[in-house]
């Protein structure tokens, strides 16, 4: 079956420390992968998306970077965290047909990683 895993689930980090959030998917190959950030009580902001190994598109300039070292692995990183990096980070992959409509693409999300920068 197709599943998506994110870790860690929660993280408390001091300002200026590095960050690494990991996302892996199972049961599929060559997925499109996404990192979103959600501020408290807000919508989702698309940060990065990837269509394949080593292929990363950044949506907004920021203190974060993403990498895709393997087909089913997507990593979100920072060298030095800022207070404004706090939030709920969601990894997702693009699936097709789950809505029952042939050819339609929908997103399947991981459980999220809550980052608090102090």
């Amino acid at each position: 079956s197709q599943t998506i895993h994110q870790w860690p689930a929660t993280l408390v980090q001091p300002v200026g420390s590095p960050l690494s959030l990991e996302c892996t998917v199972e049961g599929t190959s060559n997925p499109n992968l996404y990192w979103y950030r959600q501020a408290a009580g807000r919508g989702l902001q698309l940060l990065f998306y990837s269509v394949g190994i080593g292929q990363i598109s950044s949506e907004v300039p920021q203190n974060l970077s993403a990498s895709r070292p393997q087909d089913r692995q997507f990593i979100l990183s920072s060298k030095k965290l800022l207070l404004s990096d706090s939030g709920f980070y969601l990894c997702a992959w693009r699936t097709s047909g789950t809505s029952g409509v042939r050819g339609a693409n929908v997103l399947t999300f991981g459980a999220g990683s809550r980052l608090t920068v102090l």
Partner: protein
Amino acid sequence: SQQGEEDPQALSIQEGENATMNCSYKTSINNLQWYRQNSGRGLVHLILIRSNEREKHSGRLRVTLDTSKKSSSLLITASRAADTASYFCATAVGWGKFQFGAGTQVVVTP
């Protein structure tokens, strides 16, 4: 700015009542999707409606789409306490990219 904008921002109803929330978007779409997020969890896809459809049903969910007004609505009938969650509309912007609105927070009280 967000491609999808939901209103109201928050909705409080009692069990058994219907909950209606709306979504407006700016650009042409192929389809519009609704997702649900329980507190502190990831989003779960609920229903998709294509641009050539006007209405779609799935269980207690009913979605409408008016492409002339660039708007959609999600109706949850006979709500239950378990429907308490945030609901987001999403549209595909460009190839393979999805943009989400700020969401409607629904609280269903027993």
